[in-house]
């Protein structure tokens, strides 16, 4: 069932898939701010946990990695995901807009255009996020 017309509520969990090894710290299993940097775009993709189970969530991440691999011509690896609550996004004065397809996709927007402010927001989001490794 599509969530396109279902507004995101503060108690929802969102996933930002981690496609780069430099976007997390294996030393303490934390998410790096770079994972939440939108630049040069002013929005950022996330996937809503709502109404899907863990395996379907990972499947959506795998599809996104495959799409990136196809576009870039190189193998893009999904290392895991950064889970964050919608409330933590709203607390930074950003909005979350459903944007399907793909299923459960949403955009966080609008990030400020100034890069220093984007970095500040990305640090605050990384501080709240929880790293979940892709099961092997």
């Amino acid at each position, binding site marked *: 069932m599509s969530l396109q017309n279902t507004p995101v509520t503060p108690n929802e969990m969102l996933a930002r898939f981690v496609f780069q090894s*430099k976007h997390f710290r294996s030393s303490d299993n934390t998410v790096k701010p770079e994972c939440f940097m*939108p630049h040069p775009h002013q929005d950022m993709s996330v996937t809503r946990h709502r109404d899907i189970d863990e395996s379907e969530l990972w499947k959506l991440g795998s599809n996104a990695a495959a799409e990136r691999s196809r576009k870039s*011509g190189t193998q893009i690896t999904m290392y895991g995901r950064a889970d964050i609550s919608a409330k933590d996004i709203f607390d930074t004065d950003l909005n979350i807009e459903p944007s399907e397809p793909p299923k459960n996709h949403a955009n966080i927007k609008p990030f400020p255009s100034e890069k220093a402010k984007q970095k500040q927001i990305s640090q605050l989001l990384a501080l709240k996020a929880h790293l979940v490794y892709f099961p092997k």
Partner: protein
Amino acid sequence: MTAAATMNYSTAYLFSTQGISAEALSIDESKKSISNRLLDTFSMGERSRIIFNRVVELTSIASVRGWDGYDGLPVTYGTHYYARRFMFRLPEHLPLPELSADPDGAISMEWYRMPDWIFSISIDDTGKLDYSGIFADKKVSGSSFFVEEIDSDIIDYIGRI
């Protein structure tokens, strides 16, 4: 120890380019040649070697457009150059940052203690610095340009990590 510190300072100086005439460039090339030999000869070149290795490794990952599978811009030689220069100008007592590439082609330099004690600078191919830090309840952010010296505020922020 004293000799090592002195030589490290000299090595950093050797990378300075302040003239653009043929003579100046020739002298600069000679300086680089000398400094490379110094790096190979003395153990105190270790910090410089780490800087080179980190920047080269990062550039190899993000050298083409779309390196992130999402239209990411490549890290150019200019960005590579400014990032190296910046790190060579860091006082010896400060740790070197972890590096990553930003989607806009800038190099991000991160000093990290824990998630709520972190300072990060992005540097681009014009020498523009965009920085942000969290020190528990205190937050800082701003922009400036790196020319020859690092702003004292930035040195202070890095020193807090």
